[in-house]
């Protein structure tokens, strides 16, 4: 489904960030990418999202080079990926309902569908009573759950979670990981970057370890060893 073909990324100011990355991710996999700060974890996700272009190599999604996509094709591609970030990235002047509805509107869904699905998905992440709250009125854990709800609302092929538990306490961390596991069990590919040892060890899924821009380990049922 996803294939990084000898990908390298170099920035003019900070030098080589990724070097010779070759990896494949199958549908329905749950992959954790671990490594110290600056290892290149977020860069891999940015390359997949076409936020950045590789210096060399190709990033393929269903055998198509994602960097050859144009404008509207890029938008359509991004709608097949749900994103969850460490800093939540909710739109501050929209309520929880509106943040999720926006993702559906962007995908061209109708008003009746939105009115039916959004409350349902908010219930799924246990935020049914916080529909009309703004992000600044929610706790960190609640914000992340809204973000996950937004990520899954369009039934994407992949969920990308970049340090989703980085700003959360252990209880909320566990809640978020359980939700991601549930989502994966329902058939969505999940790619998670983290440097939380506890999270990785609990999951007992595939672990790709990065160090200084290179893949140093790729375990099918790995633990956090950096």
């Amino acid at each position, binding site marked *: 489904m996803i294939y990084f073909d000898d990908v390298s990324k170099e920035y003019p100011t900070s030098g080589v960030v990724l070097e010779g990355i070759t990896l494949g991710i199958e549908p329905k996999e749950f992959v954790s990418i671990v490594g110290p700060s600056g290892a290149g974890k977020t860069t891999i996700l940015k390359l997949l999202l076409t936020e950045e272009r590789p210096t060399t190599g190709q990033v393929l999604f269903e055998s198509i080079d994602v960097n050859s996509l144009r404008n509207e094709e890029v938008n359509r591609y*991004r709608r097949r990926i749900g994103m969850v970030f460490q800093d939540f990235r909710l*739109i501050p*002047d929209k309520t929880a309902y509106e943040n999720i509805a926006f*993702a559906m*509107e962007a995908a061209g869904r109708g008003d009746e569908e939105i009115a039916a699905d959004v409350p349902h998905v908010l219930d799924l992440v246990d935020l049914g009573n916080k529909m009309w709250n703004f992000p600044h009125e929610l706790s960190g854990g609640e914000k992340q759950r809204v973000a996950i709800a937004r990520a899954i609302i369009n039934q994407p092929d992949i969920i990308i979670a970049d340090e989703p538990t980085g700003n959360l306490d252990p209880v909320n961390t566990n809640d978020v990981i359980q939700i991601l596991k549930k989502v994966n069990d329902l058939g969505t590919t999940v790619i998670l970057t983290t440097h939380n040892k506890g999270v990785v060890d609990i999951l007992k899924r595939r672990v790709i370890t990065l160090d200084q821009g290179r893949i140093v380990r790729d375990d099918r049922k790995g633990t956090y060893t950096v």
Partner: protein
Amino acid sequence: MFITKVKRILRAGFISFWRNSFVSLASILIMTVTLSVIGLLVFGSAVLNTSLSVLRDKVDINVYFVTGAGEKDILSLRGAIEALPEVKNVEYVSRDESLAIFRTRHEGDQLTLQALDELGGNPLGAVLNIKAKETSQYESIAKFLEGKNALSNGGSQIIDKVNYYQNKTAIDKLSAIISSSRSLGLGIILFFSLISIVITFNTIRLVIYNSREEISVMRLVGASTRYIRGPFVVSGVMYGIVAGFLTLIIFYPLLLWLGPKLSDFFSGFSLLSYYGHHFIEIFLIIMGTGVILGAVSSYLAVRRYLKV
């Protein structure tokens, strides 16, 4: 689906305008200043044009006829002059009227009136007062009159004097002033309008700078360019509309207070009355400028942050 998208964009723009009221207010205030400058320049232009017309109207050529010139010949000459394309109008002052005007003008000057009485009869000839459409056209009218002076009443010339050449310097200077004032006036209007527009554009750019992360999130979620940009343009248009209304409302008491003070200075021109008579045009200029400025500023400002 298209109508749904448009409805959503309009709704999102309106909600954003409302929810970010503090930021909206700042943008509206700046835009009101800009539109007020443009409005004042519209009025300034009207005042200038009126003043220049009044000045222009004071200039004319006077053709003094000999006392023996027959009225028939004078009126025939008048017809010929009126037929010239550069002539606006020609006023005929008969010998009797010239005398009456002279007596009125020198009412307090007994010595002059006594001298006039001693002369006996009417020493004054008839006069034609000629007004041209443009001050630059008096020269050609004067040349025409020179040519026409060859016309005679039984062999003698009927024109005694044409006062153009005595006033030529003043007329030429006035023509130059009028021409320069027009160019300068236009230049000033454009200059201040441009500065105001740039200030408004930068203000809206700052407002949208605040939303740059929001825009990047929308991009990552897969929203199209139009769907991201639309609500910002709608908000920009709303700033323009509200600022336009505020400007038009502010002008009324301002002109009520300023009008009478300027009326004497600008030869009786009433700003308030001009505002009333030309309200539709002024409304369209102010509102149109506000809407276009708001929309274009937002459109260009968002473009910068859409490149994700």
